[in-house]
């Protein structure tokens, strides 16, 4: 429970970062999707009901601060979590490259889900051509950052564990 709260707090911090500091990076229109990386980590290592609700809530938070229509990112994050959870039994993350690949694929799934839902609920011209570029750019940036974020989350966990052991 404590771990889920920690992850959720980190997620909210990432929402804050994505709306402010990360816009300083010279990546053009792309904002690194660290929330997705967090949800993938959560889905791979700690898949429980709190994690499902946390992923949904983080997606919803992104909707609240930036999406013109509520539910888009909440849907995409929930779907990513579900797919990562289902495939977690057959994935063995033993090095940073594999984690980058998993995040890359998860980002593609999220992009595809967004475009699909977008096409259904918000009709727009040129959606498919424009979206392909965004999906790939976002996935590459997320994959590049994934090993660092995974390492940071692991360190945060060890710190919590250390505190717990000391307290006992």
């Amino acid at each position, binding site marked *: 429970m404590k771990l889920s709260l920690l992850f959720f707090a980190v997620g909210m911090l990432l929402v804050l970062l994505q709306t402010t500091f990360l*816009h300083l990076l010279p990546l053009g229109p792309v904002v690194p999707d660290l929330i997705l990386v967090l949800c993938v980590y959560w889905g791979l290592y700690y898949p429980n009901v709190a994690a*499902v609700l946390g*992923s949904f809530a983080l997606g919803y938070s992104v909707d609240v601060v930036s999406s013109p229509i509520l539910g888009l990112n909440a849907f995409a994050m929930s779907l990513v979590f579900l797919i990562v959870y289902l495939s977690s039994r057959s994935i063995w993350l033993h090095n940073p490259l594999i984690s980058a690949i998993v995040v890359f694929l998860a980002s593609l799934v999220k992009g595809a889900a967004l475009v699909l839902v977008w096409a259904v609920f918000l009709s727009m011209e040129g959606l498919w051509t424009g979206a392909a570029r965004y999906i790939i750019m976002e996935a590459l940036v997320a994959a590049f950052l994934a090993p660092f974020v995974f390492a940071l989350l692991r360190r945060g966990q060890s710190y919590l564990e250390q505190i717990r052991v000391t307290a006992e």
Partner: protein
Amino acid sequence: MVAFLRKNQVLLSSGFCLLLSLYILTAAARGHLKQDPVGPILLWLMRPLQIAAQAATGWIKEIDQRYATVAGFRTENDRLRKRIQELEVERNKLLEAQATNQHLQQLLEFRSHLPSGSITASIIGNSASSWFQSCLLDKGSADGIRKGMAVVTPLGVVGQVVSTTSRSAKVLLITDANSGVDVLVQRTRARGIVSGSLENVTIMKYVKRSEDIQEGDRLITSGLDGVFPKGLMVGTAVKVRKQSLGLFQYVEVMPAVSSAQIEEVLVVGGEPSQAKN
């Protein structure tokens, strides 16, 4: 039964969240979701953090700019460098004060031309997603901002308010693919709709092939959309192409206002009327 639920609790809760998000999407898309119960609380909680983070972001930008300025003088001797730094800091302060003064004067002057009830607001956050071009303002419904109000600066149109809480407002920028501003070509009065696209370019849509439009033409609001006052600068046509097929021309637009460079905006209320641009 309990064992089944316990065994599949992650799958079941994931399914529930997917269905819930689809329900929210459907309700929001049909306009049935009049009041989001969670969003305002979340924005209220995040508002002070965002204001602080945005201030820190501005500080980082300033340091970056100051560093770039100072880096040019590295080859000079220490005494001169120190003196230049002092002068530079002093100059920056003066320039900043002058620019702020000028900017506020412009806003005041511009505000007098807009419908009554215009509200000055600061941008406290940008979009958290690459897919949407939006920003958050530090004022909301408690300050008189309502959904659908136009957001402008003396340089031109910024966007439109899409949702509000009591102390913040979300603005969909004109560069977002979901936005649309009814515009006129200032020179020929040809009409069209300016909108963003996912290809990171802003385009003017629905310009008939027969219309006279050239690169460099200024685009202004027509006032016909009932949102933006007439005569506000929207952008400049930078690429005009008549495609071999189709009824319309392809017109690429350079927006007059870059959201990355603005800090204060005016939220325009009241009935749209003619603005002096």
